[in-house]
């Protein structure tokens, strides 16, 4: 089946007038979406534009408040994913929906109408293998999911959807956790599915290159509304960006002073185990000077979390040494590190970096409850904490009803700004920032980056751990791609290009982590 021609034909799947409200938020506002059979249709938008909500409605996980869905121009209503699956719509979510402890085969068989009653895994296995051969890809059916890589898990989910008889595949941010080679494989595979097997693909993403590379048509969402509907061939990148964001944003490298201070941090052959008992960090070495930024670039799951936690004292090192100012701090507790001037901004802002049910002031105290300046005879200096919180709120432009509002009422961006302000108010000498702009809108992300740069101007050394190559390249003095717990190399910014770094993130051409 060839991609649809100029003349609009009857859409295979359509959503008309979809509106969805959550408490305090209008997530989708009269959205119309039309998908043609046999095309790759991209839904483009930033984080928070409503893409995932729309997909959840298409898949039956949510019910729209207004509007309706049409399959081949027949009005339908999905009460649950069960209905959507029965109708030939399969979805591969942003986060893996696989049971890690079970085998691939068990995951594929889960919920399939043919596996009601007694399980006959043998016949299921034969059927699945046949299907895989037909579509041209294989997955290890006997392996347990936790043993597979992200890319492999993605394919398991796709095969699972196809085994359920999906004619329409919805993929929500499929490339989010993949290395560049895995992305290529995925896109090629999708094109094959569409071209040779008549599958229709609905691809949801915020990444322009993906859209330009494979989609036939693109719908752009912004703040819950459809702002553009184009054929990809007719669309220009800049105009798509403008639609997504609403105004022009120029990407540029941050201006940074070239002054570097004395050596501050030395990490030697650092190794650590992850929660499953596997070695996640393998002999990482680097050093940082005051005012320097080391950007650790990698896809989540390659040891970054463990690296950040070991440096912050939240995870014991299996071997290796960490020296701050010449002093061996490898075995120091988190509290001792805070006192020594280490500041840590964790990736999980709600689960770890803040306490949702506490007020802003009480959240500030999270980094100050041990500080003698704020404790008098065992009593917390509430007035002092209030003043500090007020300063943070003003300086970092944190929008909140009041200082005593609970942290859970803050939006992601404002919460991150609060956390950033709180950590930076301690004037840390070493700042560990793990995914500092994840999930933030463009304005908030730009603010956070600018703040990090300011911190370096004050002499702080920054370890920036991020998945966003642009962010790394625009902020770092040195770039270290990380793959399976090792640094590929530590490259000075001037020599680091997106392709080189991207390749190393995928494990290509791994060299010894050299001494600079």
């Amino acid at each position, binding site marked *: 089946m060839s991609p649809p021609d100029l003349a609009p034909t009857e859409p295979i799947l359509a959503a008309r007038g979809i509106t969805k409200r959550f408490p305090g938020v209008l997530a989708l506002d009269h959205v119309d979406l039309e998908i043609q059979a046999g095309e790759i249709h991209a839904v483009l938008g930033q984080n928070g534009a409503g893409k995932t909500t729309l997909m*959840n409605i298409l*898949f039956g*996980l*949510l019910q729209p408040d207004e509007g309706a869905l049409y399959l081949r121009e027949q009005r339908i209503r999905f009460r*649950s*994913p*069960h209905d959507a*699956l*029965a109708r030939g719509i399969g*979805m591969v*979510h942003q*986060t*893996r*929906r*696989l*049971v*890690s*402890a*079970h085998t691939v085969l*068990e*995951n594929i*068989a*889960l*919920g*399939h109408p043919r*596996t*009601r*009653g*007694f*399980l006959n895994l043998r016949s299921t296995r034969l059927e699945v293998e046949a299907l895989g051969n037909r579509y041209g890809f294989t997955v290890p059916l006997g392996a347990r999911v936790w043993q597979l890589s992200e890319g492999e898990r993605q394919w398991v989910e796709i095969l*699972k959807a196809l085994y359920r008889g999906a004619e329409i595949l919805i993929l929500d941010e499929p490339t989010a956790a993949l290395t560049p080679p895995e992305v290529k494989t995925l896109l090629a595979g999708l094109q094959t599915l569409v071209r040779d097997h008549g599958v229709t693909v609905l691809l949801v993403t915020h990444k322009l290159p993906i859209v330009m590379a494979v989609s036939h048509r693109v719908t752009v969402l912004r703040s819950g509304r459809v702002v553009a509907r184009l054929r990809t061939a007719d669309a220009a990148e800049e105009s798509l960006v403008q639609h997504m964001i609403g105004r022009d944003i120029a990407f540029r490298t941050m201006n940074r002073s070239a002054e570097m201070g004395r050596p501050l941090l030395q990490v030697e052959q650092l190794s650590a185990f992850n929660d*499953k*008992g596997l070695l996640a960090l393998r002999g990482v070495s680097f050093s940082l000077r005051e005012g320097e930024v080391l950007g650790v670039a990698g896809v989540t799951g390659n040891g970054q979390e463990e690296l950040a936690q070991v440096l912050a004292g939240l995870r014991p090192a299996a071997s290796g040494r960490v020296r701050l100012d010449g002093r061996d701090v490898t075995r120091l507790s988190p509290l001792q590190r805070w006192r020594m001037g280490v500041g840590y901004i964790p990736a999980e802002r709600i689960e770890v970096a803040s306490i949702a049910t506490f007020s802003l002031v009480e959240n500030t105290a999270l980094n100050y409850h041990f500080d003698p300046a704020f404790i008098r005879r065992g009593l917390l200096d509430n007035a002092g904490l209030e003043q500090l919180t007020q300063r943070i709120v003003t300086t970092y432009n944190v929008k909140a009803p009041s200082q005593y509002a609970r942290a859970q009422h803050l939006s992601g961006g404002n919460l991150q700004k609060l956390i950033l302000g709180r950590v930076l108010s301690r004037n840390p000498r070493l700042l560990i920032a793990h995914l500092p702009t994840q999930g933030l809108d463009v304005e908030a992300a730009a603010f956070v980056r600018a703040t990090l740069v300011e911190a370096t101007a004050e002499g702080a050394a920054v370890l920036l751990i991020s998945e966003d190559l642009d962010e790394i390249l625009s902020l770092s003095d040195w770039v270290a791609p990380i793959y399976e717990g090792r640094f590929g190399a530590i490259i000075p910014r001037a020599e680091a290009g997106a392709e080189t770094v991207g390749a190393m993130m995928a494990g290509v051409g791994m060299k010894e982590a050299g001494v600079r």
Partner: protein
Amino acid sequence: MWELVARSLEASTIFLFAALGELIDQRSGVLNVGLEGLMLFGGTAAFITAQTTGSHALGFLAGLTLGGLLGLGHGFFSITLRGDQVVSGMGLWILSFGLTTYLGSPYTGPLGLGRIPSLWGLSPFFPLGVALVAITWLLLFRTGLGLAIRSAGENPAAAEASGIPVTSIRFLCVALGGMLAGLSGATYTLSYNPVWNYNFLMGWGFVSLALVFFSMWNPWILLAGASLFGIMWQLSLSPELILPGVLSRYVWRTVPFAITIPILCIISTPWFRTRWGLAKPEALGRPYAKG
């Protein structure tokens, strides 16, 4: 000697039924720490019904029903309201503890009905227990429903995305678990020790809860654990069989409980966890919200 073994196995069925129910519960992701409460209520309801109607069968039915209802109550609080499962469980326990003491006190004393016939001295509940273990194992590991239950307990989001109605499955398991707990209590008051006294379980429900953890959520290991515990308890009642004259009988009563503690410690060590940690249903105790 055979009498001792038979009696131990009968005691073990009490632990077995309750723990089996809790195992099914936990496999689907719901934690019920108030197991003892359901057992108490089931046992009391069974006792009162049996004594007033003169029928064992009706007594068991009452125990099963009440256990199931309480299980559904726990389900409502934990699943629908997404409340803290520990709070709900504790609440059920205190509730049952308080109410059964009052409701049962007029009936304090022996049941007064004929004993339930036994097979060569062995209570019929033990083979029933073994059968239930086999059925549970078959259900959990050899049927599509069992796969759905286990998935609901590991990753409810994944299960939901595969079309599994997680909420319904959890309610089913909580009801089943409740009924088994009620059965356990009824077995105690109608067969094992047919004399009603307030707080007749003396903490056995919590031992059953511990047994579920020990068993690593495997029904067969659970059977072994329950049998072991039954033997320990029976020995503690008649210590003169192995160590005559040593220590007062009260001290012996503490032995089963005291042994549980080091076992709990061992299964919590990192060595044990990394080897068997994968056995714990990942989503146990966590409320699930759709979408």
